[in-house]
Structures are given as structure tokens and as C-alpha cells.
């Protein structure tokens, strides 16, 4: 399922809070998100705190846990399969991350976008 409006409220919102500080928790949101996207579910991976770095080009490519594929590879597959990546604007700002730094399929959003998704009934899970 592909949604052309990057900020449209999704059906499923998967939150990630970790980047290179925890490779397993950095990768899991995209693993679950990719399975969800390939099951035709409108899915957003919502990144906060250190996880917003995953949305920047190249950062996730070398983050690997155990025998899982690299986080960057799963992220790219997730986007190819119609998934969207939201990076929390309150978290990207202090880290100097701008829209120009982001991978394809990612956007910086605000608390209002998150609120809209939750009020709209998005199911959530967090890692």
C-alpha cells in the first residue's frame, strides 16, 4: 500500500527510539514495518530521540544486530514496499538534522502529525 502524502495519518505507527546505541532496537521497527508494509498495511516508522539519525543518509547502513540484515537495508526495503519514515522534529533540530539530510521516504514531522495519527486511531507499537 502506497500513500503519496508523506504526512497522512497511517493505520499502523511503529516507534523507534534507538540508533547506533542499540543495534537490535534500531533494526526492529523496520523489520516489523517491512512485514506490515508487505502485508498491504499503511505503515509509518516514527523515529524519536537517537533513532532520528537512522533517517539520515548512510547512518543506518552499518548498524547490524546478530544475523539480522543491516538496519539501512531493511529501511530501504520498507520504503520500497510503500512504508513511510517520520523523524520527530523536536529530535532532529537539536541534532542539526534537516530535510536535506534524509533518506528517500523520510520526512520531518511535528507533534501535531503524531497527535493526528493517534486521534485517527493508528495502532502503535514501540521499540
Amino acid at each position, binding site marked *: 500500500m502506497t500513500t503519496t502524502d508523506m504526512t497522512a495519518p497511517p493505520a499502523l505507527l511503529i516507534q523507534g527510539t534507538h540508533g547506533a546505541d542499540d543495534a537490535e532496537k534500531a533494526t526492529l521497527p523496520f*523489520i516489523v514495518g*517491512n*512485514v506490515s508494509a*508487505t*502485508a*498491504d*498495511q499503511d505503515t509509518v516508522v516514527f523515529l524519536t530521540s537517537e533513532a532520528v539519525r537512522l533517517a539520515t543518509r548512510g547512518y543506518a547502513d552499518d548498524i547490524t544486530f546478530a544475523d*539480522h*540484515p543491516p538496519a539501512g537495508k*531493511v529501511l530501504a*526495503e520498507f520504503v520500497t*514496499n510503500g512504508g513511510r519514515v517520520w523523524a520527530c522534529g523536536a529530535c532532529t533540530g537539536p541534532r542539526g538534522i534537516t530535510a536535506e539530510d534524509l533518506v528517500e521516504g523520510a520526512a520531518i514531522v511535528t507533534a501535531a502529525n503524531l497527535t493526528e495519527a493517534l486521534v485517527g486511531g493508528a495502532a502503535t507499537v514501540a521499540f
Partner: protein
Amino acid sequence: MTAPTRTLDAPGLACIDLTPLIASTMRDLRPGDVLEVRTDDPAARVGVPAWCRLTGNPLTDTIADTTHPDDNTAFHITKKENAT
């Protein structure tokens, strides 16, 4: 039992890869075609049916290898008629 149109032999793959691979393989099929998925992942016995329910592609047969009751399974998934 309907003969499969295509077979996906997927030993060693678990949920990280299996259902995304099923999805990408199904894209190449025509509505009504049957994909046989062979897997040795025990969790696929609950995961593949869930994927079929979510996508609306009917799971038409589940064939368990009785010599390896906890492992090998073949699923027949029929591509739904209104697939894009």
C-alpha cells in the same frame, strides 16, 4: 488440490525475510495463480496464515511434512482476483 503455478523454496528464512519474499513473488503472478511456499520455519505455520488474512490472498492448502512435524510446511496461496 490445485497445482501450484510457482514454487518458492525458502529454507532458513524466518519472519524477517519470508513474508516480504512471498509478497514480492506474488506481485509477479496473475490473479488465480497459486504460489507454493516451502519453509522450515516452525513459526511460519502461524505467520503465513496471518499474512494471507491481512492481504486477502486465500491460503488454499497447508501441507505439513509429518516426518518433520515441527518444521517443514508447504503453503498454497492463491493470488486474489482484485489484486493490482
